[in-house]
């Protein structure tokens, strides 16, 4: 299928730099893309997020401006979160907005710098080919030269400060395309806390395409908060691929509270014995927002565990999609897999599709999964109102409570409060609810 979108981005690939193997990767990805196009509606992975409208659009890559655009730091400042901070605007690192004061055992570079210094160490990550047509945007990401963050933690080092990685598009970049490729590697027994933060000012309508690749070596632990609070006018596609070695632990929180149209593919491979994934997530949608989260966990070793609890809220004419697939491969005996997905519809016209999928090819596996779509509990609503809380505030309070499970374990109170506020803002009739939140502060 020929695609205006792909041609507009790929025809003028321009000069590309980097080692030969990387150029080769790009050429192959490009060839494949032009041959195969975007997946058709019948592609199972894109069934609920049709690409027809996007396909016909002509986009243009944002070039690194000679004069960097002004960005208000207020757009991405988070309570309780300081440096180190790395800020990318329209797919380009902005050293003037970043602060990566040196932290023992933590190396932070832009992808460009890292490639110049030691390209070979990135070969495994950047050389990854995305074979399935469903992974078309990761393939597109591979076909084009990219900036991004390369974050590495040395073996045994437990990084104390919370790292803030900001990705945003600049206002006014209509029909713009930008992309990022982030590579995050945790050495044996190391630990890192990271916030990936999508933000931006109102008025931009770009398409952002982000690929994150995490590798956690034996015994490493990554605490990751993906906070997607992009303006409601943008399109955002993310792919997060994590590979966990033995005893590694990925603790992940996803808060989807922005973008007009967004797709997130989260693929986690539990490759080493006792590797463990804990994933909490929520999307809160209104207007005509569309959000599609697709999780794919594969248990490939013994006694691996995953624990996924996701919530979704859709109001007005919003559309949410949750697909949670857990595969326990042959030989991955003793796996423990749990998936729970509950959703709330706040309006008759909102829609949420949820599909939990469990596939087990091993023995002694403990697995449970469940998914529901429903409305607010009328009994609880009446209870709150009977005590004097007005209906709109009561609804917001209950809805927020429903969402909180996604980030309740965050102990940074300031950050927790800001996440509360961020979600409240997106809930119906937030004003009175915000009052309620304030008086209880």
């Amino acid at each position, binding site marked *: 299928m020929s695609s205006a979108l792909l041609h507009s981005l790929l025809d003028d690939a321009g000069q590309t730099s980097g080692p030969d193997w990387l150029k080769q990767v790009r050429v192959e990805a490009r060839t494949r893309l032009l041959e195969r196009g975007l997946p058709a509606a019948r592609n199972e992975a894109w069934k609920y997020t049709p690409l027809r409208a996007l396909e016909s659009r002509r986009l243009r890559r944002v070039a690194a401006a000679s004069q960097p655009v002004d960005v208000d730091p207020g757009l991405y400042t988070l309570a309780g979160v300081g440096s180190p901070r790395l800020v990318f605007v329209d797919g380009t690192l902005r050293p003037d907005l970043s602060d990566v004061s040196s932290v023992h055992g933590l190396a932070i570079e832009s992808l460009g710098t890292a490639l110049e210094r030691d390209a070979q160490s990135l070969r495994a990550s950047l050389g990854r080919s995305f074979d399935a047509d469903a992974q078309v945007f990761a393939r597109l990401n591979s076909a084009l030269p990219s900036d991004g963050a390369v974050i590495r933690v040395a073996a045994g080092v437990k990084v104390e400060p919370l790292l803030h990685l900001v990705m945003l598009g600049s206002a006014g970049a209509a029909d713009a395309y930008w992309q990022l490729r982030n590579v995050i590697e945790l050495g044996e027994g190391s630990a890192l806390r990271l916030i990936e933060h999508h933000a931006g000012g109102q008025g931009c309508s770009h398409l952002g395409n982000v690929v994150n690749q995490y590798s956690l070596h034996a015994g490493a632990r990554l605490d990751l908060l993906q906070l997607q609070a992009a303006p409601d006018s943008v399109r955002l596609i993310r792919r997060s691929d994590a590979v966990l070695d033995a005893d590694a632990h990925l603790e992940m929180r996803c808060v989807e509270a922005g973008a007009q149209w967004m797709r997130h593919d989260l693929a986690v491979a539990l490759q080493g014995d006792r590797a463990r994934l804990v994933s909490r997530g929520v999307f809160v949608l209104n207007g005509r927002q569309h959000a599609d989260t697709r999780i794919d966990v594969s248990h490939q070793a013994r006694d691996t565990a995953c624990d996924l609890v996701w919530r979704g809220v859709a109001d007005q004419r919003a559309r949410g999609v949750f697909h949670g697939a857990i595969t326990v491969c042959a030989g991955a005996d003793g796996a423990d897999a749990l998936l729970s997905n509950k959703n709330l519809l706040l309006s008759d016209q909102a829609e949420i599709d949820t599909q939990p999928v469990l596939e087990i090819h091993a023995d002694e596996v403990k697995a449970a999964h469940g998914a529901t779509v429903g409305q607010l509990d009328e009994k609880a609503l*009446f209870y709150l109102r*009977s005590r*004097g809380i007005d209906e709109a505030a009561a609804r917001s309070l209950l809805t927020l409570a429903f969402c909180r499970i996604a980030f309740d374990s965050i102990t940074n109170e300031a950050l927790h409060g800001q996440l509360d506020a961020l979600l409240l803002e997106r809930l119906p009739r937030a004003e009175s609810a915000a009052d309620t939140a304030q008086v209880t502060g």
Partner: protein
Amino acid sequence: MLKIENLHVRVGGREILKGLSLEAKAGEVHAIMGPNGAGKSTLGNVLAGREGYEVTEGSVEYDRTNLLELEPEERAAAGVFLAFQYPVEIPGVNNTYFLRSALNAQRKRRGEAELDSVQFLKRVREKLAVLHLKDELLHRAVNEGFSGGEKKRNEIFQMALLEPKLAVLDETDSGLDIDALKMVADGVNAMRDPSRAFIVITHYQRLLDYIVPDFVHVLADGRIVESGDKTLALKLEEHGYAWVAQRTVAGAG
């Protein structure tokens, strides 16, 4: 303060209250007893403004206003409080947060100054002491994982904190051990006041030894079929509701 006249209420397509009349003046305590399914909780729910209760006939006047026209939160601010027979668990909503939101929402609606957290906590401490409730319950989610007795005491604690003018207690004594029963009674008695009225729904005369009512009513089949003073409760205990039914039939005939 409260005047219910010939109230007819349908729930789920069935008529549950069938011409109920009751008047309660400020300063009075009314006990309502009656068999299971008679409509006692229905009455409490209608007074608190729960949806799905269709008033087909009759009126409820409270403080010289038509209570039935008010939203539940307006009734709360006007001083109506219902202690639920089955308090609702609300995961994810912190008990203190909830109480302060409720109190301040009511105060705001009444045009009173909202309490800051210091003032609020001072008030909480005072009321907790009366009910011997553990502090720890305040930090949990509303009623979540509370024992049956803790839930009931939490209702009375909320009442103490919100200081309503008309409190309807729906079987607050059910499931309480004897010590908790006394605490609940102490909590209610401490609030008895010439400006306040109570409607106490119960199945057990025992509660009325501690909260001595001015009037006792029997609610059966959607109506008040018998009213008297506190000795009526003792007679009921002795003879059961069949006795009332017989008397009613006899009276009608």
